């Protein structure tokens, strides 16, 4: 580091300390602006990571039926015919499952009916054991917590009160998928929904077919894992819908911040620059000096915003904030909100604050170098 740069850095630091009220106001204002943005990006990244895990853990192919131009149930007979056609009979390469929903007292819950080869798990459990017997279910931890369900408790559901289920275990709070979920065997889900012989999806582990034949099947509801992966990424990247209001809010809050940075202490800054100019400082030196000052403020704001976000999300599990990003989680989420902090949002935040403050200080430098020293002192 050259001596002149070190001196400029020291002067910039000195100025931040001298005008500590303005500097602190700026840092706090920008921290408040960056906090929701960094939090939103961290939650988005966390959600995407969990979704990608879901896709990667899934089968190579997923098959759905067709109903009224949309996806619909698929019959087990059709799956059997496909198995025979592909020469996969008895190899368990194609397994059906049901993902449906139903009401549990006053809550709408997801219901997963799984093939016997899958229903035994192992599922990560918080209490109880895996499903061993008929009419046994695993329940999500939010459900268990709200309705005091524990292993051995029996219940029925309004959609089919004739079926009595017994809680075998409570799922571990690992991700948001497990929150309000009922896991049972495929046949019980079929009985419950009164849809014997039908599944919502089929998982296809392998497809020993030439690619042109596979392409033909894709039009008939066969979704390759790569395509789901692609959709997922595209969805998160392209729409980014959830962040639009944050950017709008960011821009709206920037205006007062800009006013603060360019307005508060403007006359003092102009006078200081004018004096420095008369003492022999060049315009370039003054620009570097102001840039370093902006750099200190923006670095402080970006780091503080990230730290606050990290503390709130990891310490308080996104209390009060998470509900704006993840649907139906309530003010105090009862499952771990996925967040992933990467350097890019913090760096982008730093760049943003730096640009705003730097643009604000440009005017001060310009008018300060134009002013005569005696005018500045008056």
């Amino acid at each position, binding site marked *: 580091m050259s001596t002149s740069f070190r001196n400029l850095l*020291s002067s910039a*630091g000195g100025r931040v*300390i001298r005008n500590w009220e303005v500097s602190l106001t700026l840092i706090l204002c920008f921290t408040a602006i960056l906090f929701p943005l960094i939090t939103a990006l961290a939650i988005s990244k966390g*959600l*995407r990571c969990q979704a990608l*895990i*879901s896709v990667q853990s*899934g*089968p190579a192919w997923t098959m759905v039926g067709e109903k009224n131009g*949309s*996806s*619909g149930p698929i019959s087990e007979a059709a799956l059997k015919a496909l198995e025979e056609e592909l020469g996969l009979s008895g190899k368990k390469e194609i*397994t059906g*499952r*049901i*993902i*449906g*929903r*139903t009401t549990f007292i006053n809550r*709408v819950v*997801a219901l*997963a009916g*799984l093939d016997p080869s*899958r229903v035994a798990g192992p*599922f*990560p459990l918080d209490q109880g054991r895996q499903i061993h017997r008929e009419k046994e279910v695993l329940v999500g931890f*939010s459900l268990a917590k709200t309705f005091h369900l524990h292993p051995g408790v029996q219940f029925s559901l*309004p*959609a089919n009160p004739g079926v009595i289920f017994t809680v075998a275990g409570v*799922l571990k709070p690992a*991700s*948001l*998928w*497990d929150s*309000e*979920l009922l896991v049972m065997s495929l046949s019980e889900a079929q009985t419950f*929904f009164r*849809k014997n012989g039908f599944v*919502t*999806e089929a*998982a296809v582990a392998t497809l020993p077919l030439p690619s042109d034949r596979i392409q033909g099947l894709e039009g008939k509801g066969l979704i390759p894992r790569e395509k*789901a992966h692609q959709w997922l990424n595209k*969805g998160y990247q392209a729409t980014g*819908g959830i962040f*639009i209001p944050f950017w709008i809010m960011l821009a709206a809050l920037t205006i007062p911040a800009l006013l603060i940075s360019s307005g508060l202490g403007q006359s003092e800054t102009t006078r200081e620059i004018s004096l420095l100019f008369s003492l022999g400082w060049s315009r370039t030196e003054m620009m570097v000096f102001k840039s370093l000052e902006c750099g*200190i403020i923006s*670095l*402080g704001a970006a*780091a*503080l915003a*990230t730290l606050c976000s990290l503390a709130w999300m990891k310490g308080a599990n996104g209390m009060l904030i998470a509900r*704006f*990003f*993840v649907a*139906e989680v309530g003010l105090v989420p009862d499952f771990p909100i996925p*967040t*992933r*902090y*990467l*350097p890019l949002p913090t760096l982008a935040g730093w760049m943003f604050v730096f640009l705003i403050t730097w643009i604000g200080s440009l005017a001060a430098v310009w008018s300060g170098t134009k002013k005569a020293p005696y005018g500045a002192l008056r």
Partner: protein
Amino acid sequence: MTRKETILFLILGLLCFSTALLMVWDHWTWEQGKTGDIKAMQKALGGLGMGAIAGPVWNFINYDPRIMSYDDALTWPIPGGYSFGPDRTATITYFEENPQKGWMEARRNQ
């Protein structure tokens, strides 16, 4: 550099260092431990298509007027979100729920 300036740069350095350190810790927990249970759960469920079911009341592809009076998938929280993700509760397919007894009559009476 004066004492006050040194303290300022020390505080700034500490802020940046602790932020970087916490980010590395976050990355490490994702890589090492946090995903284990999620992977186990997803493998058992068959992964793909589970959608977000933290609150399945929201955004099923075929919305149900018994549950919501309007399709809020289009309006909440922000329009334009993508349905094939865990922050949306849509599943990739739809399995019709049997209407409860007396539902049609109740609808007609409304």
